[in-house]
């Protein structure tokens, strides 16, 4: 049922989704993965913490335009073509800062039996869903309400997202197995897969957790 709705919305807004994918998703993914590579080449103590931060940021920062598309589709409203990019630019700082805060919380709180890690990751997953609220307090409160209602079942969504990514990634690597590949090839492949996969995940999450 939910998957059929996702596919319906994807088909209805296919042109807009392709435009956003080409202009935003692919460059942002390439940029953040290159930043991760740069972090790896620097001699810092734990390079995997900022690299994983960039991977998570890649997911959350690209949420608002697709949320915008889905929200206007569900409410039968029309919108300007440029409003999708405006949604990305306006919400970039808010999502960047709160992803940073919750990521720090979940990394450095992991010695407390992984409870802050779980709460931080679910807040990172749910926080971009409530960007259309007026103030930050309202959006964080609604995200926290969803965390309290659904508690452990958000992990299943997280598992679905991660396993879908791993599945498609391994399939793509199997296809290009015989070629001589380098880092840039993997980065471009990863960005194409993100452009293919991310819209489905975003629309699915928006339909599932957006009650009002």
């Amino acid at each position, binding site marked *: 049922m939910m998957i059929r709705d996702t596919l319906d919305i994807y088909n209805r807004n296919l042109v807009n989704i392709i435009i956003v994918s080409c202009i935003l998703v692919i460059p942002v993914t390439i*940029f953040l993965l290159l930043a991760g590579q740069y972090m790896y080449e*620097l001699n810092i103590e734990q390079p995997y913490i*900022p690299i994983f931060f960039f991977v998570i940021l890649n997911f959350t920062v690209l949420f608002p335009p697709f949320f915008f598309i889905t929200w206007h589709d569900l409410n039968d409203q029309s919108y300007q073509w440029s409003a999708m990019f405006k949604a990305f*630019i306006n919400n*970039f*700082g*808010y999502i960047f800062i709160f992803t940073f805060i919750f990521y720090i919380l979940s990394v450095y709180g992991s010695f407390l039996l992984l409870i802050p890690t779980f709460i931080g990751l679910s807040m990172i997953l749910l926080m971009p869903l409530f960007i259309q609220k007026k*103030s*930050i307090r309202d959006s964080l409160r609604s995200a926290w309400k969803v965390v309290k209602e659904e508690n452990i079942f958000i992990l299943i969504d997280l598992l679905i997202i991660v396993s879908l990514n791993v599945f498609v990634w391994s399939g793509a690597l199997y296809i290009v197995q015989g070629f001589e590949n380098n880092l840039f090839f993997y980065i471009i492949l990863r960005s194409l897969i993100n452009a293919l996969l991310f819209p489905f995940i975003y629309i699915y999450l928006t339909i599932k957790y957006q009650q009002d």
Partner: protein
Amino acid sequence: MFSLKGLFSTVGISLISTLVVSFLIGLLQINYEFLVVSIIFLVTYVVTGITAPIWNPKTPYFSSYLASIILTLFNFFAANYVLGVNVLFNPDGVNNSLVISTTTSLITTFIFLQITKRNQVTNDD
């Protein structure tokens, strides 16, 4: 009313503009260090000063001040943990960077507000 969301939007836009400008500088291969640093500095804090009154029309100066302080703190954080420069050991440098960045964005906000006020007056006439 002061809106925190507008402040974060200001910070985000100046971060995006910094990223784009530094990407262009890297693409064009400009090798003069002073020129590069001053271009990035000016773009970041001038954009902060211009975009602060858009989301916080009631409290423009406070918003641009806070946004530039947040950006400077991000700079310190990145310099400490990523580039390995111990910025906080040098109090004069910290003082200089805080003062120069906040004054740049505050002056930009002042000029921008004067220009918009004059435009409104001429439009009303």
